[in-house]
């Protein structure tokens, strides 16, 4: 198992950030919120928890791993493009998020914008938007994404991709 431990940064989003690429989505977190990057092949798919795709080991414990679409719905089947598992720190432990690629941005510059009111759901894990080159980065925090996943898991009753809560 190859573990990368990104250097811890301050809490400011203007310090280094990590961008998880999930299909067309670029989801940005403060680098300090990402505790490890693992290969998706290290995810133990045996007996996964509810709506998760498996488990990943970290600090002698195992933590649930989720596979999301670029609409942040839960996926049952893991696309082959999800080659990396990012371990995010949350209040009571960690969660793994499968992604296609991970990039680290040093000294993120640019103006962050609020999500416009007409498109902002109260429980959305997308907290702000940041144009960056030819991309749009969706700024999030692990606690918001974890709460969103928790809500999807509770609402899960149908197979396949679960949409964002209406």
């Amino acid at each position, binding site marked *: 198992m190859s573990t990368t431990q990104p250097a811890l940064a301050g809490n400011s989003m203007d310090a280094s950030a990590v961008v998880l690429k999930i299909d067309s989505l670029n989801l940005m977190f403060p680098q300090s919120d990402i505790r490890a990057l693992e290969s998706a092949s290290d995810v133990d798919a045996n007996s996964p928890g509810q709506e998760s795709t498996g488990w990943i080991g970290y600090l002698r414990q195992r933590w649930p791993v989720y596979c999301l679409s670029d609409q942040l719905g839960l996926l049952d089947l893991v696309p082959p493009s999800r080659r990396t598992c990012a371990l995010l720190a949350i209040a009571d432990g960690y969660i793994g998020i499968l992604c296609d690629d991970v990039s680290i941005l040093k000294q993120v510059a640019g103006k962050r914008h609020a999500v416009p009111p007409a498109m902002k*759901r109260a429980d959305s894990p997308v907290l702000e938007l940041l144009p960056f080159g030819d991309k749009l980065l969706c700024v999030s925090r692990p606690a918001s994404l974890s709460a969103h996943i928790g809500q999807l898991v509770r609402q899960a009753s149908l197979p396949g991709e679960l949409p*964002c809560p209406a």
Partner: protein
Amino acid sequence: MSRMNAWLLDFGDTCRAAVGTRELLHLVDAPSAFAVPCTPVYCSQIVLWQERLLPVLDIAARVGALPATAPFLAVVGYQQQRGEYPQFGALKLASPPKQLAVGDEQACRLPEGNDAWRELAISCFEYRGEAVPVLDLCRIFSRAPD
């Protein structure tokens, strides 16, 4: 000759509405928009315009018609209160807008059978036998999704 005071906007699928002449600011051809997750289907994209991020609203999808194929975006401006700095948004259009001269005598009821217009329109007028809602841009772009 009557003074032009409205833009007729075509959202596709026979879905049309109007805004005031001063509310439509810019027409963007072949825009490149970014999808934002966890947003309503009728307002799921953002476009970068003059260093601002504008929400892109699909009125056709909002009222239950077929979503616009949208070769154009209309950049619109509105004020939450008189004298306040304007806010901006974008509307998907199926074809370029047309200017109209609209008079008080054309006032009519909103199209029947679709309650969605009540949340989107501030008034309505008759044009060539068709009820054309006048969009309440401030309400449309300021209100959070249900």
